[in-house]
């Protein structure tokens, strides 16, 4: 029974885990954009955050389901920036990080 519960938990997490790509206007320096990383990292549902200044986007990898878009917009706005687009992607934050850091 215990093994079944563990298996179910694992499957549920895997199915609903979601990574969101947030395109942000105004992110021009790390000193200014650190608020975005800090605020998103504080969310209990956050697994990983990757900020890409060059392309102007943030990857939010969640432990379970995707975070409500209004909540994300509020966090980014409170950090001083504007969200232009939020979309779901299949890659993890680390996979995106590896992809862009190698460039």
């Amino acid at each position, binding site marked *: 029974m215990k093994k079944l519960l563990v298996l179910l938990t694992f499957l549920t997490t895997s199915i609903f885990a979601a990574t969101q790509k947030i395109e942000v*206007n*105004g992110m*021009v*320096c*790390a*000193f*200014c*954009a*650190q*608020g*975005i*990383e*800090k*605020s998103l990292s504080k969310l209990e549902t956050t697994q990983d955050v*990757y*900020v*890409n*200044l*060059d392309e*102007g986007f943030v990857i939010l990898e969640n432990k379970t389901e995707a975070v409500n878009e209004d909540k994300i917009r509020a966090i980014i*706005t*409170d*950090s*001083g*920036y*504007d969200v232009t687009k939020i979309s779901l992607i299949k890659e993890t934050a680390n996979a995106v990080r590896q992809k*862009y*850091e190698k460039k």
Partner: protein
Amino acid sequence: MVKFIFVCLLAISSVLFAAPMSFKGSVTSMSDIGKRHTFIETNYAYDIKSAIGVKFFHMDNNNRIRDGVEINHIHRLLRENKKHSQMNWWLFGGIGYLEGSNEAIKDKQLSTAFVSPGLQWDYETKRVYALASHQLIRGDSINHDMTQLKAGFSFYETGFNQTQPWFILEMANINGITPQVEITPTIRLINKQLFLEAGVSNMGNPKVHVMYTF
């Protein structure tokens, strides 16, 4: 008393800052250290656009000395976020108390309440930076205008977790304190929470600016 607190703060803090305020809920401390003007300031961003802070400063040109403390408020009037740039207008001002001396009254000390309204504009991309600010300090026998212009470029673009080096040329003047416009070429290093600028002015004075956001 003001001087004592100021010296204590400098002694316990090696952290200096430059940006007016950071993100909502953050605490930003900033300081400039120079021969004629040094300050240390900490503010708390209680809102997206507003912060309240406390600032201690010291001005000294051998003839005139000013040691002051102020409670200030910073308000972001406008921010324009674009894909590759950001532009801001800031309105700030404080009310405080200072002590000091003027050459005209020799050894007599002056002490006065003062106000310090100011306006700042800045524009930044990943490779270009520009700033213009003007602040008044007005009190009984106190009449200073602090003007600052900065412009520069980064040597190359970096990732979010890397240190980005910049060259910044600063022109600053405080009427009644600096004998002429002081021009300082500086190297700026930015690495997330830490912001550091250092240079030597055309008058041979070293200047350091450090910022840190908690």
